[in-house]
């Protein structure tokens, strides 16, 4: 599924793609983020009842964490331009900021980090590989952000080995749920014809 585009200087190619954003790239990246953001916002209302369970047993929360990281990977896989993962992720975070969360504008920082990390993975592949491998790695990278953040924000007094286990579960969950999930969704979306304006139209 990795689609190689025209050869030529990798950097020149990346530069051209980074500068050539069309309106449709920008808006669809942002709308994707908002769509994912609103699902999780509604989802949170439904699932807030289960919070006590998660509170008492943090690994359970870590295991489903991947869901929350799908936006950046999905944006990258669909739009296929440098910065798409970042834009989608920030858009998803801005939904929470606008609708109201106890973190307020700080979620924008989370969104930025969760977008930059998968962006780095796509960059490492020269923005040419969009297959399952790249998706899983990008999602795992995105998972690093909450893995570290939670350990220094929530679980500060935990012994190191607890923190490491927690972090590993978060990253694995991200790789499986966000990575595999985003890749499968992209394939399905391409089959439905919705991605016609994008390079991902062929899957």
């Amino acid at each position, binding site marked *: 599924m990795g689609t190689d585009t025209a050869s030529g200087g990798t950097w020149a190619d990346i530069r051209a793609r980074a500068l050539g954003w*069309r*309106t*449709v790239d920008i808006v669809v990246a942002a709308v994707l983020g908002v769509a994912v953001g*609103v699902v999780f*916002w509604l989802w949170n*209302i439904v699932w807030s009842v289960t919070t006590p369970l998660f509170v008492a047993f943090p690994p359970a929360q870590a295991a489903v964490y991947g869901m929350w990281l799908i936006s950046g990977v999905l944006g990258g896989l669909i739009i296929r331009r440098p910065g798409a993962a970042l834009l989608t992720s920030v858009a998803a975070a801005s939904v929470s900021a*606008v*609708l*109201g969360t106890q973190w307020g504008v700080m979620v924008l920082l989370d969104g930025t980090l969760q977008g930059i990390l998968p962006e780095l993975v796509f960059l490492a592949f020269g923005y040419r590989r969009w297959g399952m491998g790249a998706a899983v790695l990008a999602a795992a990278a995105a998972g690093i952000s909450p893995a570290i953040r939670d350990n220094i924000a929530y679980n500060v007094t935990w012994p190191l080995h607890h923190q490491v286990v927690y972090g590993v579960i978060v990253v694995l969950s991200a790789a499986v749920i966000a990575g595999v999930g985003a890749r499968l969704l992209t394939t*399905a979306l391409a*089959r*439905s*014809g*919705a991605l*016609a*304006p994008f390079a991902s*139209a062929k899957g």
Partner: protein
Amino acid sequence: MAEDGRPGARVELSGWGWRHAGRDAHTLRGVDLVIDPGERVLLLGASGTGKSTLLHALAGLTGDDGAIGGDEEGLLLVDGERARRGRAGAALVAQDPESQIVMARAGDDVAFGPENLGVPPEGIRERVGEALEAVGFPYGPRHPTGALSGGEKQRLVIAGALAMRPRLLLLDEPTANLDPAGADLVRGVLGRLLERTRATMVLVEHRVAEVVDLVDRVVVLEAGGGVVADGPPRSVFADHGAALAAQGVWVPGHEPAPSTGAAPGGAVLLEAAGVAARTPPGLGVRVPPRRPVLENVDLAVRAGTATALTGPNGAGKSTLLTLLAGLARPYRGAVLPRGPLAAADRRPLARWPARRLARHVGTVFQHAEDQFVTGTVRDELRFAPLRAGRGARETEAWVGELLERLRLTALADVHPYTLSGGEKRRLSVATALSSGPSHAPDVLVLDEPTFGQDTRTWSELVELLGELRSQGRAVVMATHDGLLLRRLADVRVRVARGRAEETGRTAAEGGTRGRP
């Protein structure tokens, strides 16, 4: 708005053609057309003839940097220059107001175009004021766009186009998504506007009768070809009306007349008792609390009868439909099965397991896509019979027969989302209908089933619904479609201000009010 002193743009196409990216056939080809400054032109043609594509091309949206990719041939000039988006004096108003409003406040949204054109701030303020006044916008510039009705939103969209002071006004079915009151409002605004401006106008509209007074010329396009008729509305309809109608175009004086058979009437199948509903939980911490949509609605749905819900958008028609279909729980009261339906399960419909519900109550959503759950047309049709426990062979035979009847055999293995609007509608009705021959659900609930359909799909649909009614099924539909109401509705219920009131009942049905 277009300054009264400035003349409209001149449009010239010669040998123009367009092929969408990834398609083999041209959407349009060999289009030769000259539109003089100030002319008002209606583009007409069967579904899929590329009318909207031509409008987009005139707006300069089909280049490499746009969302619409494909190959262009021939020449398309606006005032002697290749069309360039925004800057060439063209403005476009499309169907769906939701996707055309960019900003959260009315004034900011109107200012969006002028900002992009680099108009200095003082100039923008002046244009915003003028444009909002021209469309009779009833609120101030700081009014939240999210709080507007559909008709108000579309008026704001028109204001946004006017603020760019266009010399070429392109209208792509501007009233299609509105309820009758909203559509009247927008048509009124357009009529007044066209008296004041000298801008050239090109209009695409599905329901021709309603806009024919706004134009002085009709141009008929043919799929894969060019202009096949061109002239004043009266003469074009006289010469080509029958041919257009045969292609499914809504032509005044050529309304379809499907045969629907008589309504047999029958026992009550569903009864809404004291049903109340509220708006869904608002998004965000700043929204007001949930408000009531329906209050104390009582309604009986009878077998062999077509019940139509009418009323303005947002008044609760769709909410009432989802309650009648057992998809959601009412806030108060209940929707109860009666008669033969109660034999399946006596509990309120909302508490039925999904599988049982799907067997007895079919629902057709306004957007056909919402109800597709598989990846191919064939799987979509197989889904219900297989889940109902029918054998593989029986299912295949039934699916094959359905594909033939729906004229979808050649498309059996494509994704349902890639079908055309009419094909999607036919498929969505088929999926809701049955798990096998003679297993149609007792009640069929439809939300705006005829929306946006050409006359051919429209007629097929009305005939099918008539047939189901003759078989003694109950049909419940929410609709604005006046012709559908006249052809099919036995009982009309107006939903407005939280109430549902029966407003009409046809003679044929009146005779079967009692139990058979």
